[in-house]
């Protein structure tokens, strides 16, 4: 698309026919990208109509910041215990109070962000690569590819997902890596389902047929025509499953799998505070639980916002 100013060779007897559509919109200058423009306009429209989505973006920035620089800015060492100051309610010195060992809960909550974030991001990246690819291939090629992918996905779906994750972690061994793997595996069917359905409806779409007529092979159609059209929907899926991945990992560590104490992690911190709830020391479990909730809430809102951005029709 270079050299838009050059004069085209005179076409062969262009028929003099009237134009049929309104040509009123401003003429885009060369190199100008109207698509991007409209996405920004659309994003602004959504943010204006739904301030909650704006809030989600702000919260996301905060979480990302904590994950990045959290360990360097916290007021106390998250691992340093001080039995003299154990079980203190929130004060100016300890904003979120202290736990049974006198560790500063605020510092522990902030530092834990990075670990929870990493678990969620790596597991989602893993499942996106595997499930997305398998799903698109299954939806596009059909036949045996589809049968194998669907069979694997159905077998995973035959288990209650959290229960399967427990089994996988128990079998593979009780480590953080295996939590990531288990989370990726139980999300696999969700990605396959979305990618497969989207690729499947597009397989027979006019523009794919047209691409075939234009001489595109299967591989090129898959990567050049179908994938770019599925990406927005996959992005929404990523955002929605991110929250689920965090919940899942926290649930596993709540029952004692994966992360080992004294490593700060939200799920395990709630578990540590669970026993103290019935004696009234609410802060030990509340703050990490609330952090967990805010993180998941953010990703869910973000997913909804992205969905509005991608497809205003599907807003619910």
């Amino acid at each position, binding site marked *: 698309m270079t050299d838009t100013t050059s004069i085209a060779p005179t076409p062969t007897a262009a028929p003099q026919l009237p134009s049929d559509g309104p040509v009123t919109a401003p003429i885009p200058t060369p190199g100008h990208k109207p698509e991007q423009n409209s996405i920004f306009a659309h994003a602004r429209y959504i943010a204006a109509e739904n301030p909650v989505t704006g809030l989600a973006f702000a919260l996301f920035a905060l979480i990302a910041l904590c994950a990045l620089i959290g360990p360097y800015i916290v007021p106390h060492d998250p691992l340093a215990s001080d039995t003299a100051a154990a079980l203190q309610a929130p004060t100016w010195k300890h904003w979120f109070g202290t736990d049974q060992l006198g560790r500063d809960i605020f510092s522990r909550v902030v530092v834990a962000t990075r670990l929870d974030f990493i678990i969620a991001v790596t597991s989602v990246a893993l499942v996106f690569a595997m499930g997305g690819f398998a799903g698109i291939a299954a939806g596009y090629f059909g036949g045996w590819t589809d049968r194998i992918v669907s*069979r694997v996905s*159905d*077998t995973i*779906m*035959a*288990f*209650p*997902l*959290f*229960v*399967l*994750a*427990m*089994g*996988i972690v*128990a*079998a*593979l*061994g009780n480590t953080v890596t295996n939590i990531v793997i288990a989370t990726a595996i139980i999300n696999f069917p969700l990605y396959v389902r979305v990618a497969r359905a989207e690729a499947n409806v597009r397989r027979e779409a006019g523009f794919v047929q047209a691409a075939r007529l234009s001489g595109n092979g299967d591989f090129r159609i898959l990567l050049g025509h179908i994938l770019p059209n599925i990406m927005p929907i996959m992005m929404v899926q990523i955002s929605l499953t991110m*929250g689920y991945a965090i*919940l899942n990992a*926290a*649930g596993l560590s*709540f*029952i*004692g*799998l994966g992360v080992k104490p004294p490593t700060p992690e939200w*799920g395990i911190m*709630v*578990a540590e*505070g*669970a026993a103290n*709830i*019935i*004696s*009234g020391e*609410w802060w030990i*479990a*509340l703050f990490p*639980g609330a952090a*967990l*909730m805010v993180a*998941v*809430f953010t990703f*869910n*809102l973000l997913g*909804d916002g992205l969905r509005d951005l991608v497809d205003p029709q599907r807003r*619910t």
Partner: protein
Amino acid sequence: MLTTIGKRLLTVIPTLIGVVIVTFLLTRVLPGDPAVYFAGPAATPDSIAEIRKGLGLDKPLPEQFVRYVGDLSHGNFGNSLSTGRPVATEITSRLPASAELTLLGLIVSLAIAVPLGILAAVKQGSWIDHTCRVVATAGVSLPVFFTGLLLVYVFYYQLGWAPAPVGRLDAFVTAPPTITGFYLFDSLLTGNLESFWSSLSQLILPVMTLAIFSLAPIARMTRASMLAVLASEFVRTARASGLDTRTVIITYAFRNAMLPVVTTLGMVFSFLLGANVLVEKVFAWPGIGSYAVEALLQSDFAPVQGFVLTMAVLYVALNLLIDILYGVIDPRVRLEG
């Protein structure tokens, strides 16, 4: 109708085979040697080899698999390492506790979520609609174990309305004799009102926890599919024919809107059965979830394997039930084939 159900039953077979293969493979990918596990810390190489032989671990994988399937068909899930008791009997005796909790949770959440979703869709943009959206988003964001702890803090510690989270019954109340295994039924059937009230009050908080958790997806789906159906052509036709609002909403919109909701129930069950494990831990509930968690922490694998298999089989059965229910509502599925 019966042939449709029969055909659907056939499709369960490959799923069950898949489930059995996966649970079998889970034991074989254990990084350590299971025989070492089973032998315990004081084992000698000889005793380990003996145990390996006893467990059949020296045989090739296919043969081990055949043996595993053979054991399963006799209801033999192996023995627990820490208690030495058969896993199958333990699971059977604990299953009613989990089932009572999960089913009540689902019923309560359906009873709240479906009307909420319908109202939100019918009165789109009203306060009910906004409530529904907030509940739906907040509900899926709350970690289920955290909700449970919050409820305990508020209703037990602060208000004192609920009993301490110590299991299915108050410490001084005797359990009713086992008929169905569901304490609520059994105590009523035997006329034991004291244990009925006790088990009911113990149930309230964990059931609420599960209900809050599963409320969100159901309410969300009900609202969305109700909105879609209300905008459909046949609802417009019904309105243009002058049918009254009740008929339009119940006979025309609601029954159609239920189809995607019933499909969602499968997913909701999956979440519920998982959440059940966490809730059992929070409320010290003597179900199969807490049994598995205890075993898991002691690297006692046979109970975990039995638990995963039981849950999967239950879940497959529930999905079958959902499909049959779908066929009852939707004539298009019923008449296929």
